[in-house]
């Protein structure tokens, strides 16, 4: 990691932007503010852990539209919706689309700060999981096709004997593959291997 987390603020009201920066920086956060969604999309740095404080109703591109656009681009940044009065329905919609939370203006600073912390933690967590999955996938990529075959059957719970029968090879050969797989996958135990493979499959499915 080592990269500092950043809080993106998108709001068309200049005083709301400035006061948020003032508030967030008072607790030592790094803040970048944008008057509209396109500006934010241009400046977004996917390498850094971050979260997005987003106003719902804006000209050009609304908060919901930006959310959709992020989804299209595969950006999984956590979003906190801040809404003015009367936009509750929009906020609900936003939550459905994966926003972390929404806060009605004017809001308690503590509540906002708590949400931001929560969101940043979640982003860091996501990033760790992605890194882990990437490692697992890289290890799997290093296996030979036969080894992957053998691994899939091992993970699905078949015995060595059964695998040998299915593949038409000797049990000893299966054992040899299995040992090499464990080694390549840095798996300490069969349970470890199963966990890696399953999480890799889930991650692939999520991605």
């Amino acid at each position: 990691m080592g990269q500092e987390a950043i809080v993106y603020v998108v709001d068309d009201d200049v005083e709301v932007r400035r006061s948020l920066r003032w508030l967030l920086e008072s607790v030592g956060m790094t803040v970048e503010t944008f008057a509209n969604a396109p500006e934010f999309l241009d400046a977004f740095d996917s390498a850094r852990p971050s979260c997005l404080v987003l106003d719902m109703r804006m000209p050009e591109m609304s908060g919901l539209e930006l959310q959709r656009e992020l989804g299209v681009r595969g950006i999984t940044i956590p979003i906190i919706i801040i809404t003015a009065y009367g936009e509750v329905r929009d906020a609900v919609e936003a939550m459905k689309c994966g926003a972390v939370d929404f806060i009605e203006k004017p809001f308690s600073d503590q509540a906002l700060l708590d949400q931001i912390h929560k969101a940043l933690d979640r982003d860091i967590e996501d990033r760790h999981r992605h890194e882990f999955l990437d490692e697992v996938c890289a290890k799997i990529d290093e296996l030979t096709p036969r080894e992957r075959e053998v691994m899939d059957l091992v993970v699905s719970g078949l015995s060595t004997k059964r695998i040998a029968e299915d593949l038409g090879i000797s049990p000893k050969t299966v054992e040899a593959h299995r040992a090499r797989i464990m080694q390549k996958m840095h798996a300490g135990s069969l349970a470890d291997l199963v966990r890696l493979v399953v999480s890799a499959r889930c991650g692939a499915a999520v991605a």
Partner: protein
Amino acid sequence: MTASDLRTLQARISELESEVRELRAEAVGKQELEQSYRELAEHSADVLWVASVDRRQLFYVSPAFETIWGRPIEDAVRSPFAFVEFIHPDDRANVLGLRDLQDVGESPREYTHEYRILRPDGEIRWIWTRVVPVVDADGEVTRVAGISSDITARKQAEEGLRSAHDDLDRRVEQRTRELSQTNAKLRDSESQLRIITDNLPAFVSYVDKDERYRFVNKRYEDWFGRPAEEILGRHLKDVLGSQAYERIRDKVAVALSGEQITFEQSLPFADGRTRDFVARFVPDVADEGVVRGYFAMITDVTKQKLAEGALRETEQRFRLISANIDEVFWLASPDETELYYVSEAFERVTGYCCDDLYRKPMSWHDTLHPEDRSRLERMIEAEPGPPSEAIRDNEYRLFRRDGELRWVWTRSRPVYDDEGALVARAGVAADITERKVAELSLRDSEQRFRQLAENIQEVFWITSADGEDVIYVSPAYERIWGQSCESLYESPRNWFKSIDPEDQARVEAAFYSNLKPEPFEEEYRIIRPDGAVRWIRDRGFPVVDDAGRITRVVGIADDITDRKESEQALRESESHFRRLLEAQPDSIIITDAEGRIILANAQTEKTFGHTREEIIGQPVEVLVPQAHRAAHVGSRTRFVADKQAREAGLQLEIMGLRKDGAEFPADMRLSLLETDRGLFVMSTVRDITQRKEAQEALRQEKELSAAIIKSGVDGILAFDREFRYSLWNPGMEEISGYAEDEVLGQCAFDVFPFLVETGEDELFRRALAGETFVAKDRPYSVPGTGKQGFFEGSYAPLRDEAGEVIGGIAVLRDTTERKLAEEQARLLQTDLAYMSRLTTMGEIASGLAHELSQPLTAINNYARGCIRRLGSNGAVSPEMLDVLERIASEARRTGKVIRGLSDLVRRHPPRKIDVDMTVAIDEIHDLAAMEAKLHHAVLSVEIAAEVPAAPMDKVQIQQVLLNLVQNAGEALEAVPPENRKIEIVATVRDSVEIEIVVTDSGPGLPPDELDKIFERFHTTKKQGMGMGLAISRSIVEAHGGRLWATSEKEGSGASFHFTLPVPQGDQTHGSGSNCLRRR
């Protein structure tokens, strides 16, 4: 000098003296000749002639020929070249050969020549002739004219003079030479010599080689008017003057060079006048040939020259005469006692011979008419003294030789010579008899005209072309106008002023503005000074000159008052009759006994379609259909023939024939008119088509009204004065449920008690009182069925033929349904208005809360940020932090208050029930149409058949629709009324949502406006808060739908779309009627 010498000299002198005497005698003779020569010239007895260009043929020779040639004129004109025979043989060739113009082929010009002629008495005469080409208008030489003068005398004089000169020269030369040799002797006898020279009829002088006078004779002294002493020794120039000296200088030089010279010269004389001289200079040559000077012998030929000049003048006059030979030209002495010339025309005019006149110039006086003669003589007597120098014109009557009386006009003028001396009187006389006769006859006719004009009854008048000058008006004017003719001459406009002002414009136009050369005529009234009014007929005839200009207007005016009055009386009586006839509502046709139409009135034209011009003179049967004509002739003939029938008159029903071929029934009455011009039949025809048609129409109307009553569209009832029903049609049966037989004859109030309970009996009473009126929305209830509702009725009294009210009639209509519908619409409107107020307030509160939450958020953030920054380092007092905390919490509290407030007026979430969209739209259709109508727009609604029911808060959705229609209507204000359309279309999209589109034909929206218009407080209108579309969007979105606008392009209108989701699975249609009952 010797004695013999002296003797010789004396003898010579005596010789010379005798010679000088001879010469003197000769000179005197020559002077006499000169005198006769002048007389000859003055008499101008020259021959005038006209000949062909080649002179072979003489056309005219004046009588002087006879005198000069000594032959009768006939000899001269007898044959070509006859005159040649009379020419001296020596001169013939000269005259014929050299001077023949045609032979020479030269362009003709004037020339002169001299020749001799042989007279029959053997005398030879010198003739001087000047020949002049006569040129016609084209420049062609057609003739030659000539004047021939007898110059024999002159020739002889010249000859004599010349020989005298020569002789004198010779002798003088000889003597002077002798004298020079004997100077001394000469000196002695100088006085004698002077006697000689002084007596010479010439100017004699001797000039030395230095051009200084050495000798002058006595005459020379006279010439210069000074004594010889003042001349001798002086230079020529000093004596003659430089001008004269210059003229003779070269001649002097010739003489001084030794040559003799003779020349003609005009030189100034002492009295200042120029004189003509013939001079001979003879050089004085010494023995050694040295020229010492010269002798000058100068003769004055002025008189001779003058005679020649006079000749030329006369000749010019004769040339004039030859061109204008029809008039008599004459030239006479200034006192006219001596006639120099009279042209031959005199003979033609007077019949008298010219010669007689020459002989006795005054003899023509004897030919004059005695009156003119005495007038002339009186005139001459009145003018004594020197002959008049004025130009004189006269007219005389003279008796020709044959006794005929002719009118002659003469004009004479003085003739002057070069020096201004009166030398003659020239005249011209013309026969003006014809002109005179014309004048006289004119005067006669004028006289006759005047007699006529002054005796006729009519006013005869003559004016200038513009009518502003009266030249003549006959005395009848005084009688008719009652004004004097003099007053009219003085003020020509008096005539116009007398005209009745009503007629003036017309007369002015005809008489003063009419400058066309055409006759004109006006009838007008005049008002005489005594106040009497007279009618005048006035005709004008413009008189035109050769150039087409009007020079005069002559006219004749007569008094036509009597005629006018009788005309007027006649016209009035005729007009009475005609008006009577024209006013008849029947066609009146008068025919003669043969049945020809001679008169028809205006109604006839209307009835039959013919103009009067078309039928006058036609047989009356043209107005009868073909099929009836024969019968008509029969009945007409019988009517005229049958005395009894005639007296009784005749009335028939016949068929008439119109011009367009249509036939019509008519009543006809015939009556007879017996006048001095014979029998006439008057037919009175009345078109009875309308009467027949009216009968038919009445019948049809009866049938129709019966049908209407029975048809039962509306309820129709009638009642009598006792309120008993007398009519009850099927419509009434339908409304009330009572049959006709149940109510007829019954009292209305018995059958329907409600009539009395609700006061409807009053309607019956009003009708019976004679009032016709409409009663609306009256409640009714039917006994038995219990049916209740409302009706509308038109009530009227029923009257009998006398106009008495015998009952009443009412036409009723059941208006229950309409009344209900109206009530529902009213309720709906109330709902909508309430909702509209509510939603508007909620929307405003919500909008306010939204707008305020932004700054409140900022305040809170800033304050909390401060607290965090300051509180962490402990550098700030707790009170300061407390205040910041209060700022933040107050901001949050404000937010809550606002939210609470807006929650209070907040729009309730829609209470959705399934509603059929068709019903929802139908319900507000009338309101929407009304809204459209407010903007003069046409509303059309189109709902697709498959549009399902959907859950909705109907009133809210209706409000949205009405909002959109209202917006559309307002957008249409920008286009002309004929293009204003609003359209509502409802469709289903993918069976998941209903889409409703409201489209207007307005100017449309620019792309950047399409979203903005939905913002709160956004408005383009003067009125309104800009909430309508924002609220609509809120409502639609609260229903889970969308509201948006599209505009294809500017100018093609705007469309507002909204959707409502349709729940899947359950497709049941909602019941609209349930909704309607809701309150």
